[in-house]
Protein backbone atom coordinates (compact mmCIF):
# COMPACT_ATOMS: atom_id res chain seq x y z
CA UNK A 1 0.00 0.00 0.00
CA UNK A 2 1.25 3.46 -0.88
CA UNK A 3 2.01 6.09 1.71
CA UNK A 4 -0.85 7.47 3.78
CA UNK A 5 -0.23 11.03 4.94
CA UNK A 6 -1.58 12.27 8.25
CA UNK A 7 -2.53 15.52 6.57
CA UNK A 8 -2.59 16.81 3.03
CA UNK A 9 -2.78 20.57 2.81
CA UNK A 10 -4.16 22.07 -0.37
CA UNK A 11 -2.63 25.49 -0.99
CA UNK A 12 0.86 26.87 -0.31
CA UNK A 13 0.09 30.35 1.03
CA UNK A 14 0.51 31.49 4.64
CA UNK A 15 -2.38 29.33 5.92
CA UNK A 16 -1.05 26.19 4.25
CA UNK A 17 2.60 26.81 5.16
CA UNK A 18 1.70 27.48 8.78
CA UNK A 19 -0.44 24.32 8.86
CA UNK A 20 2.51 22.40 7.45
CA UNK A 21 4.85 23.78 10.09
CA UNK A 22 2.52 22.94 12.98
CA UNK A 23 1.71 19.48 11.62
CA UNK A 24 5.35 18.59 11.03
CA UNK A 25 6.38 19.82 14.46
CA UNK A 26 3.79 17.41 15.89
CA UNK A 27 5.49 14.63 13.93
CA UNK A 28 2.54 14.24 11.59
CA UNK A 29 3.43 13.41 8.01
CA UNK A 30 2.34 16.43 5.99
CA UNK A 31 2.23 17.22 2.28
CA UNK A 32 1.39 20.60 0.81
CA UNK A 33 0.01 20.68 -2.74
CA UNK A 34 0.28 24.00 -4.58
CA UNK A 35 -0.83 24.50 -8.16
CA UNK A 36 0.80 27.85 -8.86
CA UNK A 37 3.30 29.73 -6.73
CA UNK A 38 4.37 29.25 -3.12
CA UNK A 39 3.27 32.06 -0.85
CA UNK A 40 -0.09 32.71 -2.48
CA UNK A 41 -1.29 36.29 -2.68
CA UNK A 42 1.23 37.34 -0.02
CA UNK A 43 3.97 36.16 -2.37
CA UNK A 44 3.21 39.05 -4.70
CA UNK A 45 2.68 41.73 -2.06
CA UNK A 46 5.77 43.90 -1.86
CA UNK A 47 4.94 45.92 1.25
CA UNK A 48 3.93 43.65 4.10
CA UNK A 49 4.29 45.79 7.17
CA UNK A 50 1.46 44.36 9.22
CA UNK A 51 2.77 40.87 9.89
CA UNK A 52 4.12 40.97 13.44
CA UNK A 53 7.89 40.74 13.49
CA UNK A 54 8.38 41.25 9.78
CA UNK A 55 9.50 44.88 10.09
CA UNK A 56 13.13 44.31 9.05
CA UNK A 57 12.34 42.49 5.87
CA UNK A 58 8.76 43.37 5.24
CA UNK A 59 8.44 42.11 1.69
CA UNK A 60 5.84 39.42 1.01
CA UNK A 61 8.02 37.16 -1.15
CA UNK A 62 10.79 37.07 1.51
CA UNK A 63 8.39 36.36 4.37
CA UNK A 64 6.77 33.56 2.38
CA UNK A 65 10.17 32.10 1.49
CA UNK A 66 11.05 31.98 5.18
CA UNK A 67 7.69 30.38 6.07
CA UNK A 68 8.28 27.70 3.45
CA UNK A 69 11.84 26.89 4.57
CA UNK A 70 10.69 26.75 8.17
CA UNK A 71 8.02 24.15 7.38
CA UNK A 72 10.50 22.27 5.20
CA UNK A 73 13.05 22.17 8.03
CA UNK A 74 10.55 20.28 10.18
CA UNK A 75 9.79 17.77 7.46
CA UNK A 76 6.81 19.11 5.50
CA UNK A 77 6.77 17.76 1.95
CA UNK A 78 5.88 19.94 -1.02
CA UNK A 79 4.50 19.12 -4.44
CA UNK A 80 3.46 21.31 -7.37
CA UNK A 81 0.19 19.91 -8.66
CA UNK A 82 -3.50 20.69 -8.94
CA UNK A 83 -6.25 18.89 -7.03
CA UNK A 84 -8.99 17.75 -9.38
CA UNK A 85 -11.00 15.23 -7.35
CA UNK A 86 -11.65 13.50 -4.06
CA UNK A 87 -12.79 10.19 -2.66
CA UNK A 88 -13.86 10.83 0.91
CA UNK A 89 -16.09 7.79 1.40
CA UNK A 90 -13.55 6.01 3.63
CA UNK A 91 -11.69 7.05 6.73
CA UNK A 92 -8.58 7.15 4.59
CA UNK A 93 -9.38 9.86 2.08
CA UNK A 94 -8.05 10.02 -1.45
CA UNK A 95 -7.07 13.11 -3.37
CA UNK A 96 -6.79 12.92 -7.13
CA UNK A 97 -4.39 15.31 -8.77
CA UNK A 98 -4.23 16.87 -12.20
CA UNK A 99 -1.18 14.81 -13.08
CA UNK A 100 -3.24 11.68 -12.37
CA UNK A 101 -1.73 10.79 -9.00
CA UNK A 102 -3.79 9.44 -6.13
CA UNK A 103 -2.71 10.64 -2.71
CA UNK A 104 -3.99 8.93 0.46
CA UNK A 105 -4.44 10.90 3.65
CA UNK A 106 -6.12 10.78 7.03
CA UNK A 107 -7.08 14.45 7.01
CA UNK A 108 -7.30 17.34 4.55
CA UNK A 109 -6.77 21.05 5.14
CA UNK A 110 -8.18 23.31 2.45
CA UNK A 111 -6.03 26.44 2.34
CA UNK A 112 -6.48 27.51 -1.25
CA UNK A 113 -7.10 31.16 -0.44
CA UNK A 114 -8.62 33.70 -2.74
CA UNK A 115 -7.84 35.47 -5.98
CA UNK A 116 -8.61 38.92 -7.38
CA UNK A 117 -12.11 39.61 -8.60
CA UNK A 118 -12.43 40.44 -12.27
CA UNK A 119 -15.04 43.19 -12.67
CA UNK A 120 -15.98 42.18 -16.17
CA UNK A 121 -16.22 45.66 -17.68
CA UNK A 122 -15.60 46.05 -21.42
CA UNK A 123 -11.91 45.98 -22.28
CA UNK A 124 -10.83 44.42 -18.99
CA UNK A 125 -10.20 40.92 -20.34
CA UNK A 126 -9.10 42.06 -23.79
CA UNK A 127 -6.40 44.36 -22.39
CA UNK A 128 -5.14 42.01 -19.71
CA UNK A 129 -1.35 42.01 -19.85
CA UNK A 130 -1.56 45.11 -22.06
CA UNK A 131 -2.02 47.61 -19.29
CA UNK A 132 -4.75 45.97 -17.21
CA UNK A 133 -3.13 44.30 -14.22
CA UNK A 134 -4.03 42.54 -10.97
CA UNK A 135 -0.45 42.32 -9.66
CA UNK A 136 1.51 45.48 -8.90
CA UNK A 137 4.81 43.75 -8.11
CA UNK A 138 4.63 41.80 -11.38
CA UNK A 139 3.91 44.73 -13.63
CA UNK A 140 4.97 47.99 -11.93
CA UNK A 141 8.27 48.08 -13.88
CA UNK A 142 6.46 48.66 -17.16
CA UNK A 143 4.94 51.91 -15.92
CA UNK A 144 8.10 53.82 -15.04
CA UNK A 145 7.38 57.50 -15.81
CA UNK A 146 3.89 56.64 -17.04
CA UNK A 147 0.49 57.28 -15.45
CA UNK A 148 -1.73 54.61 -13.94
CA UNK A 149 -5.17 54.23 -12.40
CA UNK A 150 -5.80 52.00 -9.37
CA UNK A 151 -9.37 50.80 -8.89
CA UNK A 152 -10.50 49.94 -5.35
CA UNK A 153 -10.51 51.25 -1.80
CA UNK A 154 -9.38 48.42 0.48
CA UNK A 155 -5.95 47.72 1.95
CA UNK A 156 -4.68 46.09 -1.24
CA UNK A 157 -5.74 48.99 -3.47
CA UNK A 158 -4.27 51.74 -1.30
CA UNK A 159 -1.05 49.84 -0.44
CA UNK A 160 -0.41 48.92 -4.05
CA UNK A 161 -1.13 52.50 -5.15
CA UNK A 162 1.63 53.66 -2.78
CA UNK A 163 3.97 50.97 -4.12
CA UNK A 164 3.23 52.05 -7.69
CA UNK A 165 4.32 55.65 -6.98
CA UNK A 166 7.88 54.31 -6.83
CA UNK A 167 7.60 53.67 -10.56
CA UNK A 168 4.77 55.66 -12.12
CA UNK A 169 4.73 59.42 -12.58
CA UNK A 170 1.17 59.69 -11.29
CA UNK A 171 -1.25 57.26 -9.66
CA UNK A 172 -4.98 57.98 -9.56
CA UNK A 173 -7.07 55.92 -7.17
CA UNK A 174 -10.65 55.46 -8.29
CA UNK A 175 -13.01 54.41 -5.51
CA UNK A 176 -16.77 53.90 -5.56
CA UNK A 177 -17.33 55.33 -2.08
CA UNK A 178 -16.31 58.62 -0.47
CA UNK A 179 -13.91 57.03 2.01
CA UNK A 180 -11.45 54.15 2.07
CA UNK A 181 -11.92 50.85 3.90
CA UNK A 182 -8.14 50.53 4.18
CA UNK A 183 -6.30 50.92 7.52
CA UNK A 184 -5.95 54.57 8.59
CA UNK A 185 -2.13 54.58 8.62
CA UNK A 186 -2.06 53.47 4.98
CA UNK A 187 -4.74 55.96 3.98
CA UNK A 188 -2.74 58.81 5.55
CA UNK A 189 0.33 57.73 3.61
CA UNK A 190 -1.65 57.77 0.37
CA UNK A 191 -3.30 61.13 1.00
CA UNK A 192 0.07 62.70 1.81
CA UNK A 193 1.73 61.26 -1.28
CA UNK A 194 2.15 63.96 -3.97
CA UNK A 195 2.00 61.43 -6.76
CA UNK A 196 -1.41 60.11 -5.69
CA UNK A 197 -4.73 61.64 -6.77
CA UNK A 198 -8.02 60.26 -5.51
CA UNK A 199 -11.35 60.23 -7.33
CA UNK A 200 -14.15 59.45 -4.88
CA UNK A 201 -17.61 58.12 -5.76
CA UNK A 202 -16.27 56.89 -9.06
CA UNK A 203 -16.51 53.54 -10.83
CA UNK A 204 -14.86 52.31 -14.03
CA UNK A 205 -17.18 51.70 -16.96
CA UNK A 206 -14.85 50.69 -19.75
CA UNK A 207 -11.13 50.32 -20.44
CA UNK A 208 -10.08 51.05 -24.01
CA UNK A 209 -7.07 51.17 -26.24
CA UNK A 210 -5.74 49.85 -29.53
CA UNK A 211 -3.64 46.87 -28.46
CA UNK A 212 -2.57 48.55 -25.22
CA UNK A 213 -4.47 50.59 -22.62
CA UNK A 214 -4.99 54.20 -23.67
CA UNK A 215 -7.70 55.27 -21.28
CA UNK A 216 -10.58 54.44 -19.01
CA UNK A 217 -14.16 55.69 -18.93
CA UNK A 218 -15.21 56.61 -15.40
CA UNK A 219 -18.66 57.31 -14.00
CA UNK A 220 -19.41 59.40 -10.96
CA UNK A 221 -21.99 57.40 -9.02
CA UNK A 222 -23.65 60.53 -7.60
CA UNK A 223 -23.98 62.62 -10.76
CA UNK A 224 -23.74 59.80 -13.33
CA UNK A 225 -21.34 62.00 -15.24
CA UNK A 226 -18.94 60.06 -17.49
CA UNK A 227 -15.31 61.17 -17.68
CA UNK A 228 -12.87 60.01 -20.30
CA UNK A 229 -9.58 59.57 -18.43
CA UNK A 230 -6.36 59.02 -20.37
CA UNK A 231 -4.04 56.51 -18.67
CA UNK A 232 -1.34 54.00 -19.52
CA UNK A 233 -2.35 51.32 -17.05
CA UNK A 234 -5.22 50.15 -14.87
CA UNK A 235 -4.54 48.13 -11.71
CA UNK A 236 -7.64 46.38 -10.41
CA UNK A 237 -7.94 45.71 -6.66
CA UNK A 238 -11.70 45.53 -6.21
CA UNK A 239 -11.71 42.55 -3.87
CA UNK A 240 -11.13 38.84 -3.92
CA UNK A 241 -13.10 35.65 -4.41
CA UNK A 242 -12.44 32.25 -2.83
CA UNK A 243 -10.77 29.41 -4.72
CA UNK A 244 -13.22 26.72 -3.72
CA UNK A 245 -14.90 25.56 -6.93
CA UNK A 246 -13.08 22.21 -6.66
CA UNK A 247 -14.77 21.35 -3.32
CA UNK A 248 -18.25 22.53 -4.30
CA UNK A 249 -20.80 19.96 -3.17
CA UNK A 250 -18.29 18.38 -0.76
CA UNK A 251 -18.05 20.90 2.07
CA UNK A 252 -20.62 23.52 3.02
CA UNK A 253 -20.01 27.04 1.78
CA UNK A 254 -21.81 30.37 1.53
CA UNK A 255 -23.30 31.65 -1.76
CA UNK A 256 -20.04 33.41 -2.59
CA UNK A 257 -18.09 30.15 -2.22
CA UNK A 258 -16.39 30.87 1.11
CA UNK A 259 -16.14 27.64 3.13
CA UNK A 260 -17.96 27.31 6.41
CA UNK A 261 -15.66 26.27 9.26
CA UNK A 262 -16.01 26.57 13.03
CA UNK A 263 -13.43 28.16 15.27
CA UNK A 264 -11.46 24.90 15.29
CA UNK A 265 -11.37 25.15 11.45
CA UNK A 266 -13.61 22.06 11.10
CA UNK A 267 -15.73 22.04 7.95
CA UNK A 268 -19.04 20.24 7.51
CA UNK A 269 -17.12 17.05 6.68
CA UNK A 270 -15.25 15.15 9.41
CA UNK A 271 -11.52 15.15 8.86
CA UNK A 272 -11.63 18.07 6.40
CA UNK A 273 -10.54 21.48 7.68
CA UNK A 274 -10.41 24.91 6.07
CA UNK A 275 -7.91 27.67 6.85
CA UNK A 276 -7.13 31.16 5.62
CA UNK A 277 -8.84 33.40 3.07
CA UNK A 278 -10.94 30.57 1.64
CA UNK A 279 -13.14 30.35 4.72
CA UNK A 280 -15.87 32.65 6.02
CA UNK A 281 -14.17 35.18 8.30
CA UNK A 282 -14.05 38.90 8.92
CA UNK A 283 -10.34 39.66 8.53
CA UNK A 284 -8.36 38.19 5.65
CA UNK A 285 -4.70 38.90 6.41
CA UNK A 286 -1.45 36.94 6.49
CA UNK A 287 -1.53 36.93 10.29
CA UNK A 288 -5.06 35.47 10.49
CA UNK A 289 -4.27 32.95 7.73
CA UNK A 290 -1.21 31.74 9.63
CA UNK A 291 -3.29 31.44 12.82
CA UNK A 292 -5.98 29.47 10.99
CA UNK A 293 -3.34 27.11 9.61
CA UNK A 294 -1.97 26.39 13.07
CA UNK A 295 -5.43 25.74 14.51
CA UNK A 296 -6.36 23.49 11.60
CA UNK A 297 -3.19 21.41 11.99
CA UNK A 298 -3.71 20.92 15.73
CA UNK A 299 -7.32 19.89 15.17
CA UNK A 300 -6.33 17.52 12.39
CA UNK A 301 -4.04 15.83 14.88
CA UNK A 302 -6.83 15.66 17.49
CA UNK A 303 -9.16 14.17 14.89
CA UNK A 304 -6.65 11.42 14.04
CA UNK A 305 -6.06 10.58 17.72
CA UNK A 306 -9.76 10.34 18.41
CA UNK A 307 -11.01 8.59 15.30
CA UNK A 308 -8.24 6.74 13.58
CA UNK A 309 -5.87 5.35 16.17
CA UNK A 310 -8.10 3.14 18.28
Amino acid at each position, binding site marked *: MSKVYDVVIIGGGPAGLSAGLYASRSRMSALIIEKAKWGGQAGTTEELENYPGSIEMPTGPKLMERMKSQAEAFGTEFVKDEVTGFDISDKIKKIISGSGKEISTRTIIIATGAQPVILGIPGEMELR*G*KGVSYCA*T*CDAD*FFAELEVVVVGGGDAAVEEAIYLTKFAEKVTIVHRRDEFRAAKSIVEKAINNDKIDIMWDTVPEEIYGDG*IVEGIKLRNVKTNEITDFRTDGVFMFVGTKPISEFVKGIVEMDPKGYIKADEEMRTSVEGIFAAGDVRIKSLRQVVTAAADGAIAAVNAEKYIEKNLEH
Partner: protein
Amino acid sequence: MIELNKDNFDEEVLQATGPVLVDFWGEKCEPCKALMPDVHALAEKYGDKMKMCKLNTTQNRRLAIGQKVLGLPTFIVYKNGEKVKEISGAENCTMETVENLIKENI
Protein backbone atom coordinates in the same frame (compact mmCIF):
# COMPACT_ATOMS: atom_id res chain seq x y z
CA MET B 1 15.95 28.25 -24.04
CA ILE B 2 17.15 31.20 -26.05
CA GLU B 3 17.59 34.39 -24.03
CA LEU B 4 16.14 37.25 -26.04
CA ASN B 5 17.22 40.88 -26.05
CA LYS B 6 16.96 43.86 -28.38
CA ASP B 7 19.88 42.61 -30.47
CA ASN B 8 18.54 39.17 -31.29
CA PHE B 9 14.74 39.55 -31.00
CA ASP B 10 14.18 40.31 -34.69
CA GLU B 11 16.34 37.48 -35.89
CA GLU B 12 15.20 34.82 -33.41
CA VAL B 13 11.49 35.69 -33.33
CA LEU B 14 10.26 38.00 -36.09
CA GLN B 15 12.36 36.57 -38.91
CA ALA B 16 12.11 32.96 -37.82
CA THR B 17 10.27 30.38 -39.83
CA GLY B 18 8.12 27.99 -37.85
CA PRO B 19 6.55 28.58 -34.45
CA VAL B 20 8.37 30.44 -31.68
CA LEU B 21 7.25 30.61 -28.03
CA VAL B 22 8.30 33.64 -26.00
CA ASP B 23 8.05 33.61 -22.20
CA PHE B 24 7.87 37.27 -21.12
CA TRP B 25 9.02 37.37 -17.49
CA GLY B 26 10.39 39.90 -15.02
CA GLU B 27 12.77 39.92 -12.09
CA LYS B 28 10.06 41.00 -9.65
CA CYS B 29 7.35 38.75 -11.08
CA GLU B 30 7.04 35.94 -8.52
CA PRO B 31 4.47 33.94 -10.54
CA CYS B 32 6.83 34.09 -13.54
CA LYS B 33 9.75 32.80 -11.51
CA ALA B 34 7.63 30.07 -9.92
CA LEU B 35 6.61 28.87 -13.37
CA MET B 36 10.10 28.97 -14.86
CA PRO B 37 11.14 25.38 -13.97
CA ASP B 38 7.96 24.11 -15.63
CA VAL B 39 8.69 26.20 -18.72
CA HIS B 40 12.19 24.78 -18.88
CA ALA B 41 10.74 21.27 -18.68
CA LEU B 42 8.34 22.09 -21.52
CA ALA B 43 11.24 23.54 -23.53
CA GLU B 44 13.03 20.19 -23.15
CA LYS B 45 9.94 18.27 -24.17
CA TYR B 46 8.89 20.36 -27.19
CA GLY B 47 12.16 22.05 -28.11
CA ASP B 48 12.51 20.09 -31.34
CA LYS B 49 9.05 21.16 -32.53
CA MET B 50 8.94 24.80 -31.43
CA LYS B 51 11.68 27.34 -30.78
CA MET B 52 11.61 28.19 -27.07
CA CYS B 53 12.68 31.66 -25.95
CA LYS B 54 12.44 33.86 -22.89
CA LEU B 55 12.62 37.61 -22.52
CA ASN B 56 13.59 39.35 -19.30
CA THR B 57 11.29 42.39 -19.44
CA THR B 58 13.02 44.08 -16.50
CA GLN B 59 16.13 44.36 -18.67
CA ASN B 60 14.23 44.85 -21.92
CA ARG B 61 11.25 47.02 -21.03
CA ARG B 62 10.99 48.93 -24.30
CA LEU B 63 11.25 45.76 -26.35
CA ALA B 64 8.37 44.22 -24.34
CA ILE B 65 6.19 47.31 -24.64
CA GLY B 66 6.99 47.34 -28.36
CA GLN B 67 5.39 43.89 -28.48
CA LYS B 68 2.42 45.38 -26.57
CA VAL B 69 3.28 43.42 -23.44
CA LEU B 70 2.69 45.41 -20.24
CA GLY B 71 1.75 42.60 -17.91
CA LEU B 72 3.32 39.40 -16.64
CA PRO B 73 3.47 36.51 -16.98
CA THR B 74 2.74 36.57 -20.72
CA PHE B 75 3.39 33.81 -23.23
CA ILE B 76 3.15 34.54 -26.95
CA VAL B 77 3.45 32.17 -29.90
CA TYR B 78 4.77 33.78 -33.10
CA LYS B 79 4.63 32.26 -36.55
CA ASN B 80 6.42 33.92 -39.44
CA GLY B 81 6.89 37.02 -37.36
CA GLU B 82 3.21 37.36 -36.48
CA LYS B 83 1.63 36.81 -33.09
CA VAL B 84 -0.76 33.90 -33.38
CA LYS B 85 -1.81 33.30 -29.78
CA GLU B 86 -1.06 34.71 -26.36
CA ILE B 87 -1.97 34.13 -22.73
CA SER B 88 -1.41 36.51 -19.84
CA GLY B 89 -1.88 36.76 -16.08
CA ALA B 90 -0.85 34.53 -13.19
CA GLU B 91 -4.05 32.43 -13.01
CA ASN B 92 -4.12 31.98 -16.78
CA CYS B 93 -0.50 30.88 -17.12
CA THR B 94 0.09 27.43 -15.65
CA MET B 95 2.17 24.50 -16.85
CA GLU B 96 -1.01 23.04 -18.31
CA THR B 97 -2.12 26.14 -20.24
CA VAL B 98 1.40 26.80 -21.53
CA GLU B 99 1.65 23.18 -22.68
CA ASN B 100 -1.72 23.52 -24.44
CA LEU B 101 -0.53 26.74 -26.09
CA ILE B 102 2.50 24.84 -27.43
CA LYS B 103 0.52 21.78 -28.53
CA GLU B 104 -2.07 23.88 -30.38
CA ASN B 105 0.60 25.64 -32.39
CA ILE B 106 3.02 22.91 -33.49
